[in-house]
């Protein structure tokens, strides 16, 4: 919980920082646009005022040729009828202007501004203002290059680009680091599990050699006593010895199975046949407990898992279901195909599994039962994982436990899938 809170705090902080920097970059850029426009407008106003003054004093308008700044694309002085009185291209003086853009200016006061695309493809800011000449009124038209005034916009745009690029790189690096940390944590968990299995393996070996053999002797002599002793208290003790020896033998078997490090060789098998066999095996025991089995797996389903392993999985799950169910209970096993997977579901109508147990149920030596080593489900998980599948548990809608085993569909040699 503490770890999650720390992660959330860091994530929110980084998100706020990203949002703040983004906002700053966009705001800076947006503010640059009106500043650039004002710069250009100020220049146009200065030039227009100076040119109007010169034009009013010099009726020949020749003095206007002295106005040369790098920002001027062209300048023209038009009569009210559209005749060009002055132009930076002297060849055009005396001709009529070919557009009608000057007309609205006659009825307006002050500087009017528009963006115009010239024949060269360049977009310029065109400023027009009515002017009073020595003998008539006219219109001053100034077309200004925008490149210099837009320098502030370019800087802001570059700044915005840099900020967003840095943020992107930062996020990419952050994601890579998160990925690496998660992988490291996963590897640490795997290493710890391997160590745990290795320790269990040692215990298993000891059990195999040091316990199983004498246990076989105990069980054999117990059975001998059970046969020879007359009915009575002593024979009951002998029966108890045999049943406890059986239990110990199963425990040793489970530990060996769980700790054995062998790879599972995938082989196709029919879960319908395996489940039917397991049900038949458990039926005498179930009848004693008045438990019923229901098996509903289509015959044509084929899974990629060795038959004896799937049998072990179903045996453990059905035994669990049987032990959890009340008298008169029902344990069901069903199967269906979901894409490339076969889903086998084992349900019972017992009390279900407590929420806190669900997360650790498949870990070894975790059990809620009074009798049992807590290895059955661990063995199931090991087998299913080995077959490339998955196993999970939840409580069914009826309240009992619901185990879902997903195994890959077997692909036959002729390419068909079961």
């Amino acid at each position, binding site marked *: 919980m503490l770890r999650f809170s720390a992660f959330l705090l860091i994530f929110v902080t980084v998100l706020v920082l990203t949002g703040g920097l983004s906002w700053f970059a966009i705001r800076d850029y947006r503010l640059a646009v009106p500043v650039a426009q004002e710069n250009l407008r100020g220049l146009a106003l200065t030039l227009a005022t100076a040119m109007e003054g010169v034009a009013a004093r010099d009726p020949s308008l020749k003095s206007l040729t002295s106005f040369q700044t790098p920002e001027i694309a062209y300048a023209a002085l038009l009569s009210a009828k559209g005749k060009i009185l002055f132009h930076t291209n002297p060849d055009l003086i005396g001709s009529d202007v070919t557009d009608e853009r000057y007309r609205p200016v006659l009825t307006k006061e002050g500087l009017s501004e528009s963006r115009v695309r010239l*024949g*060269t*493809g360049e977009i310029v800011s065109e400023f027009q203002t009515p002017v009073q000449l020595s003998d008539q009124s006219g219109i001053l038209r100034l077309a200004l290059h925008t490149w210099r005034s837009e320098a502030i916009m370019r800087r802001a745009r570059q700044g915005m680009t840099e900020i967003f690029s840095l943020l992107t790189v930062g996020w*990419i690096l952050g994601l890579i680091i998160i990925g690496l940390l998660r992988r490291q944590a996963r590897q640490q968990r795997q290493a710890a599990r391997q160590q745990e299995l290795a320790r269990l393996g040692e215990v298993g070996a000891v059990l195999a050699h040091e316990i199983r053999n004498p246990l076989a002797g105990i069980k054999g002599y117990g059975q001998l006593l059970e046969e020879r002793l007359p009915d009575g208290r002593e024979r009951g003790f002998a029966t108890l010895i045999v049943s406890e020896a059986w239990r110990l033998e199963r425990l040793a078997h489970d530990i060996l199975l769980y700790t054995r490090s062998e790879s599972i060789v995938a082989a196709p098998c029919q879960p319908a046949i395996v489940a039917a066999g397991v049900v038949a095996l458990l039926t005498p025991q179930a009848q004693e407990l008045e438990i019923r089995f229901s098996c509903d797996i289509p015959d044509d389903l084929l899974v990629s898992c060795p038959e004896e392993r799937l049998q072990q999985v179903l045996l453990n799950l059905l035994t669990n279901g049987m032990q959890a169910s009340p008298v008169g209970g029902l344990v069901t096993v069903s199967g269906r195909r979901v894409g490339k997977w076969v889903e086998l579901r084992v349900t019972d109508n017992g009390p279900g599994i407590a929420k806190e147990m669900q997360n650790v149920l498949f870990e070894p030596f975790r059990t809620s039962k009074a009798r049992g080593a807590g290895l059955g489900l661990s063995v199931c998980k090991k087998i299913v994982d080995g077959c490339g599948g998955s196993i999970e548990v939840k409580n069914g809608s009826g309240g009992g436990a619901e185990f879902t085993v997903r195994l890959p569909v077997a692909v036959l040699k002729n390419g068909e899938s079961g």
Partner: protein
Amino acid sequence: MQPISIILFSLLIFLASFPASAQAFWGTTKGNCTCCLNFESGYDVNTVTTVTGRILSIQTGIDHHNLQMEIECCCGIRMMVVLGPQRYWAEQGMPLKVGDKVAVCGSKAQGQDGVIYILAQKITEISQGVVVILRNESGHPNWADGGGENGGR
């Protein structure tokens, strides 16, 4: 994929898209053009001017199609004179060389790379008086007619 991964990945895409969108946010650049001028057929009589300077270099333009020459005018101002398609000059032969002093009459424009371009209409090589006409008075280029009938030296 976990929901948190999807959120982070979406955020990443969002951030990564900003530098690109910022480039075209106000429409000051269009597409991937560097100067955004119409070199081949563009011309505007309003901006016609005559400049004099020395040729610094003659090269293929950034569009790898038009020939350009850089000239240095008085006061050290440099301009790029657009001479038209390479194929036109390959047919006509190039009468100009680096170091020549020339007077260029043409339509002036400033590209979005900040460079001043002159879309040449007439070039006069001053020392020998060679005149090269690339367009008519209204800016119609000679190469648009498929040859150099209107041009001359």
